[in-house]
């Protein structure tokens, strides 16, 4: 497999009235063709901001201040705005958590899917309509042709998410960014959508950046996992290794605190303290306050990432 997306030292800061917030404080990862990387973390850890940074859609007062993003050998960060527009929604597709906020309520579904086809692919209206109907059928929407004429509010949550997927796939992207694609959905519908994404990925050899907080979804769908905390990747490894041999205290804490089905336990083991606001700690390890295993070096400096096994990186003083 070859590397399709390479992110190095990405830093996205927010310059707010209350001061500087380092939403992403320098992260590195790569995604190969056909591979799914899951970016896992809790609210405010910077995982969604990473998705927006990849597409250069960081909202004000945020800005990408440093780093490199190479996509299929192209430098995404330093190309003119017009050129990245040709990549966004075309070679890199996106799905967001809440389909209702990403679909335009006053346009018909058909027109929204066709927009990308008309814009990026230069189809005429008839060809685009044909293809849009085909896409809806592909993502499991019955009576696709009639649905093209409907508005988003006429569809259920699961159906809207399918429409979002159809839109994202319209231009046959090489990378799909899926930000919490099933979080707003019921569990039986979540199973349907993840199954659909899996099929599409296999058919098209598409690379996926799957952003989620659900460790069950990750276990079943990811090849690689990166655990984010306060703007940094704390641990990254192939999925089986990460679950089988977690090295970072935060990863271990997350895996221990899930109330798993089929494993009735007397008491859950929570991670103490609260989830930090984006980019909090300046001195010492950002997980310091909640870590059960601290020792002297943790208070002074933030640990660097260290490779403990081939492909398994950990940001913790214990493994240095």
């Amino acid at each position, binding site marked *: 497999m070859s590397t399709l997306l390479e992110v190095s030292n990405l830093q996205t800061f927010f310059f707010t009235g209350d001061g500087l917030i380092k939403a992403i404080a320098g992260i590195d990862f790569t995604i190969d063709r056909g591979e799914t990387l899951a970016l896992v973390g809790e609210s405010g850890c910077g995982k969604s901001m990473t998705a927006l940074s990849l597409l250069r859609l960081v909202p004000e007062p945020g800005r990408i201040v440093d780093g490199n993003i190479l996509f299929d050998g192209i430098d995404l960060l330093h190309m003119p705005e017009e050129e990245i527009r040709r990549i966004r929604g075309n070679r890199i597709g996106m799905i967001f958590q809440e389909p209702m906020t990403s679909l335009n309520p006053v346009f018909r579904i058909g027109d929204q899917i066709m927009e990308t086809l008309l814009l990026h692919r230069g189809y005429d209206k008839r060809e685009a309509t044909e293809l849009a109907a085909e896409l809806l059928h592909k993502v499991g929407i019955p009576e696709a042709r009639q649905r093209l004429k409907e508005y988003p509010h006429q569809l259920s949550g699961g159906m809207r998410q399918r429409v979002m997927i159809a839109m994202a796939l319209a231009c046959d992207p090489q990378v799909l960014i899926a930000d919490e694609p099933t979080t707003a959905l019921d569990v039986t519908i979540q199973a349907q959508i993840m199954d659909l994404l899996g099929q599409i990925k296999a058919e098209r050899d598409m690379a996926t950046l799957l952003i989620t907080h659900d460790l069950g979804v990750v276990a079943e769908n990811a090849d690689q996992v990166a655990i984010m905390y306060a703007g940094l990747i704390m641990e990254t490894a192939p999925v089986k290794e990460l679950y089988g041999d977690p090295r970072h205290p935060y990863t271990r804490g997350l895996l221990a605190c899930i109330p798993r089905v089929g494993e009735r336990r007397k008491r859950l083991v*929570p991670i103490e303290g609260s989830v930090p606001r984006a980019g909090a700690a300046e001195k010492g390890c950002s997980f310091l306050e909640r870590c059960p295993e601290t020792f002297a070096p943790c208070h002074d400096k933030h640990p660097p990432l260290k490779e403990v096994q081939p492909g398994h990186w950990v940001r913790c003083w214990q493994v240095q």
Partner: protein
Amino acid sequence: MSTLLSVENLHKAFRVSSSRPGAPKRLLKAVDGVSFTIKAGETLGLVGESGCGKSTAGKLLLRLIEPDDGIIRFDGKTVTGMAKRELTALRRDMQMIFQDPYSSLNPRMRVGDIIGEPLIIHGLAKGQQVREQVLSLMTKVGLSAEHFDRYPHEFSGGQRQRIGIARTLAVQPRLIVADEPVSALDLSIQAQIINLLKDLQQEFSLTYLFISHDLGVIEHVCDRVAVMYLGRIVEVADAELFYSQPRHPYSEALLNAVPVPDPQNVRQHQILKGEIPSPIDPPSGCHFHPRCPYVQEICRQEYPSLVEQAPTHQSACHFSSEVGRFRQSRS
């Protein structure tokens, strides 16, 4: 254990306007003939997907919404039909915890006043006593005294949920209806709140109706589980029985759809066909029949009643004894 709460044949329908202007309003049967009991000191989990009526059922118990029909009894007293004054007194015994800790606290009130307000309303304390009791409640839920004069926006989601729980506890309730109390919280915080709720149950002999869509959370919290689908209860069982041997095809499908956080044992999901139908126009016969792998002709015509399949295990399915057939043939 004695029965603390019993619900018989509870009904609630809402009138909803049609999407077509001018069309007549239609009836949405949110809760359509629900019966269950909760014993003192136990936790009953009410599970289901969005729109199944589980939150409405919770609010009906406290008469935060008025039921159309049915009987609710709490500790021997009939709650349905109770006069307002009596109901206010009863609400001391029956309290609710809400899902969203961001919208259920008044942003203009200080934390100490939020927690102390029910004490004053119910005339349980005054003056200096209020402050003392509030401080003691804050300690119980893991907040410190320095939080007394702060405002809700200064707290994280988990701490806000602690504030909400302290306010609920202030009136020393016996039954708490907890409606998705941890769904809005981050994973690492969920476990803290679940443990807190369990500790408080021990300490104050609380009885919970725990409403959630998360089968993992339910399993860790509940003694018994009731599953709702389109306004009706389709299965009730002891938690262990429910998780090891569900007797309704919908319960089986729900359990099967939960992704397991173990990449070494990725299982094939039995993907349920179709959408959750609209509760405005539910399918004929058994509401689950269009999605059910065990469906037969009778399911399209007759709604199966909730009957005892085994001790402490009820389900509403014509083919209850066959549930598990597909599971076994797959493995």
